[in-house]
């Protein structure tokens, strides 16, 4: 019998993810985040985390399984559409590493978990094995659960690699090196950082004027010399953008790294649940 504290711990992590994602939504709204942003991803994280917490612990159950199946069906269609739009003219392997594919996989896995539960009483008492007051849940076509678990584990390690790799080294260093008031294509920033041996942030005490006009190549800017890391530029993958000074807490909450961290936590939890329900 699975000790109750294990699903309890995963449920607590999911509640934290839901809280953080909700806070991101609120803060992004306050900072007049422009349209075309990833609000849909944050909403998806909130809904998935609440649904998973409810699956893990009966006491956290909110909606019946049928309602969640409808919600995640819609979410799967939404991210399917976004992946379709993202896929135009791109090879499959590029698409697999794209931004929306993991969210599509997460949504589809949630839909599968709610729609393919073999127990007829799923809607009434839907919670993980071993939890007090719950019944054993089994999934139909368990090989699909195994495939989902493998893919989710794959995306979790890929996210960890990305967090600790490009963005974690050159990207972070480049972002600390860049100036206030500037928006930089991070491909250039990272390239410049990498050209300096990935040490772009090390002891470059030089302040660039925040209100300076004109444009200059990022590599040339970085090559010019030290930059004071007073304000920060978010360099994530190919694009870096200035984030205003102050409100450090808000910036941390809105950082893409946090969203990636939430996605990793959800991926691992989802894989755990799928395996438990085989």
């Amino acid at each position: 019998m699975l000790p109750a504290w294990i699903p309890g711990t995963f449920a607590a992590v999911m509640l934290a993810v839901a809280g953080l994602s909700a806070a991101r939504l609120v803060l992004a709204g306050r900072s007049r985040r422009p349209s075309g942003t990833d609000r849909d991803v944050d909403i998806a994280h909130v809904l998935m985390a609440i649904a998973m917490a409810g699956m893990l612990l009966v006491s956290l159950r909110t909606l019946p399984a049928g309602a969640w199946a409808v919600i995640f069906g819609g979410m799967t269609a939404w991210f399917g559409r976004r992946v379709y739009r993202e896929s135009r003219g791109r090879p499959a392997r590029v698409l697999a590493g794209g931004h929306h594919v993991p969210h599509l996989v997460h949504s589809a896995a949630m839909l599968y978990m709610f729609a393919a539960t073999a127990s007829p009483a799923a809607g009434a008492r839907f919670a993980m094995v071993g939890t007090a007051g719950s019944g054993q849940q089994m999934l139909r076509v368990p090989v699909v659960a195994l495939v989902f678990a493998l893919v989710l584990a794959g995306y979790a390690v890929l996210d960890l690699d990305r967090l600790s790799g490009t963005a974690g080294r050159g990207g972070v260093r480049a972002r600390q090196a860049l100036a206030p008031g500037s928006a930089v294509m991070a491909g250039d920033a990272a390239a410049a950082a990498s050209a300096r041996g990935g040490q772009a942030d090390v002891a470059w005490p030089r302040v660039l004027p925040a209100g300076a006009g004109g444009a200059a190549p990022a590599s040339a800017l970085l090559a010019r010399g030290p930059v004071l890391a007073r304000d920060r530029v978010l360099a994530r993958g190919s694009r870096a953008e200035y984030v205003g000074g102050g409100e450090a807490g808000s910036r941390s909450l809105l950082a893409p790294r946090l969203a990636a961290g939430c996605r990793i936590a959800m991926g691992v939890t989802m894989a755990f649940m799928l395996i438990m329900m085989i």
Partner: protein
Amino acid sequence: MADIAVGNARGAWQDHASADARDTWRPIDARRALQLALAAVWLLDGVLQYQSVMFTRAFGRMLAASAAGNPAVIATPITWDAHLIEQHGVALNTIFATVQLLLGIGIAWRPAARIALGASIAWALAVWWLGEGLGGVLTASPSPVSGAPGAVIIYALLAVVLWPADRSAAAPFTAARAVGTRIAKLLWCTLWASLAYFSLLAGNRTAQGLHDLIASTGSAEPGWVAALDGRAAALLSHQGLTASIVLAAALAVIAIGVFLPPPLARATIVLAIVVSAAIWVIGQAFGGILTGSGTDPDSGLPLLLLALAYWPAVARPGPRVRPAATTAGRAGERSPA
């Protein structure tokens, strides 16, 4: 693209993750990709270890069963360990599951990759002995179809050949980068030759040996897996000797494949992938994961990953050299790699 646009001094959050997605994909280095695959397998192992049955006495009994047939010096610690786990199942299994989860996370987290790979080797060796009874290699009839020489020892081998170091500047395949071409080839040859040897042992050569092995696998599996195993078992009924010889021949060809020229080596790696996949699906039924009591994906999946690490590298032409006006080079000539 290379311009720095000076923005509003007030600044604002702009999440361009969608735009990022369109522009950020970069091919991952083949070795890193395989390290991540290994990390995903460890992560999956960790999750599997959290299954309900692992917290019961059945897990200890499962471990104790691996002592059977082993020499006393190997079997005694296994029995002791199995009894300990039976007594303190919840605490110890939680530790086991968490360690494996952390190994997966550590390999994926670049700054911790070396430590995690090193720890995974130590952990795999301990599990190979205390959890798998050395994969049964010292018992009467270990079979590659049933998982000999053990899944975790192949994890350890993967960690060794995927170690983040470059000994060989022009490695002919990914596995040679860390340990050098000669050692990598010897490791490959030893592993696959031992599998060929195991498949020819007396217990596997009997008329019904392979049939019984495969027939027993599908009993608790989902319908289609059981049906697949049933058909394979029926096909092998009373054909044990022939099947063992054919399997051993295929495994021997794979073993020497890495010493052949690249086109032939590539063909033997394809054969290795096919054999590994067949063993994983038919012989091991995905390591019994679909029954809810599998502790790992068994040896088929790591063998498959290992085969990918030995895929001969494609010799890419170097960048074009622009001929200087004064040089004798011809336009379009490629530089040496």
